[in-house]
């Protein structure tokens, strides 16, 4: 948690949003990021969330939210309907990440994604030394936890973007809650990454 009261990656995402933007948050949870952006940047926010309890929490937070699966709901929005489309910690849980990211860039002028980096050295050591499949940095989960996460690394995501000619505008890396500069060994050192895409 940062001084904004948001999870560290959400703090980074919030810092990228300009006042009065139109923002779509995919997998918006209880709506705290949208609430924060409405209160501090007067954005127009929309959220999509699957879980009934979280949808109720969003409405309690005064946020516009649709219950549904991202793979279906994203189809409804016209081209460039939003300034920014956010996907925080959603990538490892998607059935079809390419479809989602492509459509984020269709309905939004830009997309911002955040994810934990399974390339972090602790993850690597977990498999190498202890023989356990690594869980996301800072989010210990057994391999059989539900929903199942499919881990990815910063290198994986960079390759993914290059292959699809998705332009990375900015990339911010976190070690815990602290921002760290990009270096040759970022994929070893960073626990989280936030990518701004166009």
């Amino acid at each position, binding site marked *: 948690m940062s001084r904004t009261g948001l999870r560290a990656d959400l703090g980074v995402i919030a810092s990228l949003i300009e006042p009065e933007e139109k923002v779509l948050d995919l997998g918006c949870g209880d709506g705290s990021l949208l609430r924060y952006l409405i209160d501090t940047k007067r954005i*127009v926010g*929309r959220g999509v969330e699957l879980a*009934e309890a979280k*949808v*109720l929490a*969003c*409405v*309690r937070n*005064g946020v*516009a*939210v*649709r*219950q*549904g699966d991202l793979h279906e*709901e994203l*189809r*409804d*929005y*016209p081209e460039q*309907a939003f300034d920014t489309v956010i996907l925080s910690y959603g990538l490892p849980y998607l059935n079809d990440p390419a479809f989602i990211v492509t459509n984020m860039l269709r309905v939004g002028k830009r997309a911002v994604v955040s994810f934990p980096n399974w390339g972090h050295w602790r993850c690597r050591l977990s498999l190498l030394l202890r023989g356990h499949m690594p869980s996301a940095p800072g989010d210990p989960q057994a391999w059989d936890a539900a929903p199942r996460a499919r881990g990815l690394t910063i290198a994986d995501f960079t390759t993914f973007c290059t292959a699809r000619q998705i332009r990375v505008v900015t990339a911010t890396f976190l070690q815990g809650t602290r921002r760290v500069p990009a270096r040759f060994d970022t994929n070893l050192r960073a626990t989280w990454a936030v990518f701004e895409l166009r």
Partner: protein
Amino acid sequence: MLTRSTTGSIGLIETQYFTFAADEPLLLESGETLGPITLAYETYGQLNADRSNAILICHALSGHAHAAGFNAPEEPDPGWWDDCIGPGKAFDTNKFFVICVNVIGGCKGSTGPMSINPQTGRPFGLSFPVVTIGDMVRAQTHLIDHLGIAQLLAVAGGSMGGMQVLEWAATYPQRMRAALPIATTARHSPMLIAFDEVGRQSIYADPNWNGGDYYDGPRPNAGLAVARMIGHITYLSETSMHLKFGRRLQERARFGYDFETDFAVESYLRYKGNRFTERFDANSYLYVTKAMDYFDLSDERGSLLGAFAHSAELIYLVVSFTSDWLYPPYHSKELVSALSAVGADVSYLNIQSTWGHDAFLLEVDTMTELLTSFLNRLVKRFEIRPPSGSVR
């Protein structure tokens, strides 16, 4: 979860009547005219100083203006949505001025086929003009004018009430700020029309119906009861029938091998059917189901975008229920898709429930939480002040 609300009752409420279109009759969608028109309505709570806290509740097929409280101290049951309307409830009458109106074509005080035709001095019967959901809503706007309300805070309703909500949003977006269509559809499906037609046929087949001219003699109660029984089946779900009745026998230990009531579910349907004939007019059943069947906000290509193109400024809360097979969740999702496509501020929840279409009246806890949160958002967003001296 099914718990009866324990918060306060609005108490004793008197149904009121408003008559309009006496000089200039209302032009109906069919091209016919109707007038004078009387609307039966009830109000709960007080208008605030700037008249910005009014919420119109629209009722379903068999509903009426009596949505909350009691019309008489000895009345056994309160109004039909008393679980959600009253002090401290979802539609909190300490904050909001809540209005419920009986639809035209109905039989609970508003002008309908059992009303006296002023030209003949006899009940209209089938000479009553066919009305649509649009006509019902247009009539309601006259009452809202009469109450001195320029803009409603919200229009809310389930089932046929939800159709009126959508009609309001599509036709009078400037007269409201939020729309809450619940367990409803923007287009009556062929399956819904089919069920309605079976209900109507059972009324036509009752010899007492007599072409709709029965007000001087015995009523087509058998036909109306069967229509209601069909309706009740569609309001339940297979799971809720299992839970409610199973294969239990009614007041007998083994099969009777006769045609008396064997099963609990038969007994339930017969009871509900018969009770309905005590409170509903068969001709009204024909008119109101016909109005629903005509309801379709989509254009020739089946798109809803046009209907809501000028209603994108409203705030929507769309609610469906997982086990509702009469107005299945994908009807609501289609609506949500259209509203999202036009850029509207829409929230949507498909509430987990086993109670079928009836869930919109039965899932009180989830509905209360959802409606309360949504209405609170409206209060903050539009700075809605409570009425003065609202603390009861």
